[in-house]
């Protein structure tokens, strides 16, 4: 049986639609995966020496131990948000003569090897090796390493037991929050207190059996629970959400674009990937904090601040705009067979981008705290986003030839991504940076801001002219787009 399962896993992995993407994309994906692994590896090897350098009088192992509790709780939070038991894969197995017990073993064992569990190994393993290399007890270091791995596995199975139970999640999240804040504000040194538990592991290697037993226990608890639940109307069901219809009649005032706007709002709100894009655009508002709080940029690279400023209000324009019209790819043929005006379809997307940029701009008002000049940068960025970027992305969209499945998660999802997405980045972020850099260098700060804003305003003024061009381009490429979108990845 195990042979069968392994073979299925192998094939599933190498035949997943990820590998059928273009070569360039494959290289980018491999690069990112390697980047993650190498960073963890470097961290694993390096942190011992970094800690030694920062706190010469303390023992690096003890320092790491004292922060482990935060790492594990944070891990649980991230898992809750992102990790799901791959249970849907087993549906085809249910009608064949395979015992439910072994199916559940398969799913659980498979989950043990998920990305969330492999990544920590790349930190703990090199760290333990460094420990041994630095003259720490071999048995103690090994016990510590295995304890870490089994605690990670325990988290893995605890996450599935919690199984998206909101209450449990809030408890974990608030415990983490309380621990972090008591530590941070110095009420109580919880870190070293809990850290001593992990120190004991190193001192008495035999204690490693505790995490091992817990992990195994959690595994069997999961198994016991799941075996009774492998039913189509239980865990092996695609959850169908109750359809909720919000009243969108206010959009009717917008006239002939209204039906399209309504559909686009539903598109964004009811599908995982565009919804994530929508919600993430609010997170991007905070993006400039990274840049505004560091003096380096102000003094040496002011054009980097423009980069950040465009992002503050541009999260939606950039992330939503670059996949127009692929968002509608699943039913593009249907759209094209209807009596609709292309112009309205495009106008609707444009309206959405403009309104969202405006909303994000209002949210960015607190940036005044960093000074009027920063806020002016953001303002220029917003004008540029509304004018140039929205229209440019609509135009660039006519080159999109990759289908998008709306229901897939947006994280690390490269579906729909092609060379277009990489090329468009150059003008939409590069142009304002270049403009600012040039004008700022020769004529001063204000002229840089004005230059960016002017480009934005010019494009807004001539919007109809550009829209006509864009519409023509879309009409010309209609058949190519229909053909490309009807091919599944």
């Amino acid at each position: 049986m195990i042979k069968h399962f392994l073979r299925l896993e192998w094939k599933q992995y190498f035949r997943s639609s990820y590998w059928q993407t273009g070569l360039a994309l494959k290289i980018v994906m491999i690069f990112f995966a390697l980047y993650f692994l190498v960073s963890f590896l470097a961290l694993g090897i390096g942190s011992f020496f970094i800690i030694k350098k920062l706190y010469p009088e303390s023992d690096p192992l003890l320092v790491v131990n004292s922060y482990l509790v935060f790492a594990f709780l944070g891990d649980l939070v991230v898992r809750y948000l992102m990790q799901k038991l791959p249970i849907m894969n087993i549906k085809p197995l249910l009608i064949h003569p395979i015992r439910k017990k072994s199916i559940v073993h398969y799913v659980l064992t498979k989950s043990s090897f998920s990305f969330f569990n492999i990544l920590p190994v790349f930190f703990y393993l090199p760290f333990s090796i460094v420990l041994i290399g630095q003259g720490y007890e071999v048995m103690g270091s090994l016990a510590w390493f295995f304890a870490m791995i089994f605690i990670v596995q325990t988290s893995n199975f605890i996450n599935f037991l919690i199984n998206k139970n909101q209450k449990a999640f809030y408890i974990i999240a608030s415990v983490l929050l309380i621990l972090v804040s008591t530590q941070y504000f110095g009420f109580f040194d919880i870190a070293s207190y809990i850290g001593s538990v992990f120190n004991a592991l190193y001192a008495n290697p035999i204690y490693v059996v505790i995490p091992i037993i817990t992990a195994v226990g959690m595994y069997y608890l999961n198994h016991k629970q799941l075996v009774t639940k492998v039913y189509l109307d239980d865990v092996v069901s695609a959850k169908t959400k109750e359809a909720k219809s919000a009243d969108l009649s206010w959009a009717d005032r917008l006239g002939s674009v209204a039906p399209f706007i309504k559909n686009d709002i539903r598109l964004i709100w009811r599908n995982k990937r565009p919804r994530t894009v929508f919600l993430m655009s609010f997170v991007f508002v905070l993006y400039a904090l990274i840049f505004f709080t560091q003096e380096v940029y102000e003094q040496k690279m002011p054009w980097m601040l423009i980069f950040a400023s465009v992002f503050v209000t541009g999260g939606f324009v950039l992330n939503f705009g670059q996949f127009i019209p692929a968002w509608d790819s699943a039913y593009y043929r249907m759209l094209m067979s209807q009596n609709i005006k292309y112009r309205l379809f495009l106008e609707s997307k444009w309206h959405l981008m403009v309104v969202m940029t405006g909303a994000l701009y209002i949210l960015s008002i607190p940036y005044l705290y960093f000074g009027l000049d920063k806020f002016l940068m953001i303002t220029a960025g917003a004008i540029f986003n509304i004018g140039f970027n929205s229209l440019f992305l609509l135009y660039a969209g006519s080159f999109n030839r990759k289908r998008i499945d709306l229901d897939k998660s947006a994280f690390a999802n490269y579906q729909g991504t092609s060379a277009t997405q990489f090329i468009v980045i150059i003008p939409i972020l590069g142009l304002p940076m270049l403009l600012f850099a040039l004008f700022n260098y020769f004529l001063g700060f204000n002229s840089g801001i004005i230059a960016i804003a002017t480009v934005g305003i010019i494009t807004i003024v001539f919007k109809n002219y550009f829209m006509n061009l864009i519409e023509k381009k879309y009409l010309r490429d209609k058949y190519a787009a229909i053909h490309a979108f009807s091919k599944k990845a």
Partner: protein
Amino acid sequence: MITTENISKKYGSAEVLNIEKLEIPTGQSFGLVGNNGAGKTTYFNLLLDLIRPTTGSIANNDVKVDESESWKMFTGSFIDESFLIGYLTPEEYFSFVGDLRGLNKADINQFLSRFEEFFNGEVLDRKKYLRDLSKGNQKKVGIVAALMGNPSVIILDEPFANLDPTTQIRLKKFLKELTTNREVTVLISSHDLSHVTEVCERIVVLDKGKMVKDIQTSKETLKELESYFSLQTES
């Protein structure tokens, strides 16, 4: 022999199936008809232990399906395309299912050779994954896989849907042959009254989860069913 007793299935307060007693003797070709939501697929799902009954139980050759899994060895089934493994080629899928049902490579090849005509050259050796086949060809794969390893009970949900006319005729022939020597029980459901009446010697009509008719097929059956369902439109 498949024995159903007092089986019911409720989702919340809505009852989707309630059958007091239904006995399907070994070797019978049994058809289930009814409109959407009548409970056909629910009954098959219960019979295959894919969902749990609210009350009652089904025994497949004396094995209670929700208590033991030994019925899986002698039961072949296909519900819909979501039960295929999309990333396998048809050959790989057949060899996977064949392995599970104790067939060796030669057995599998011999078995598949019987279906060459049925596949019409569109399934085997096409270097395609199941997920990339058309709906009709996916269905063919699912149905043929359900017949592997000489199961004594075969359950097919809507086997005729999505198939081309030639394949429908061939499938009907296969199904009739299966029950000729009275060893294999065949259960199918269908929306298509003429297909079921042609293949099945007994037809049960479900309506809103209840058995409303239990007919031994005769020449008049098709007429009877047609008039039953057209009455439904008037009421």
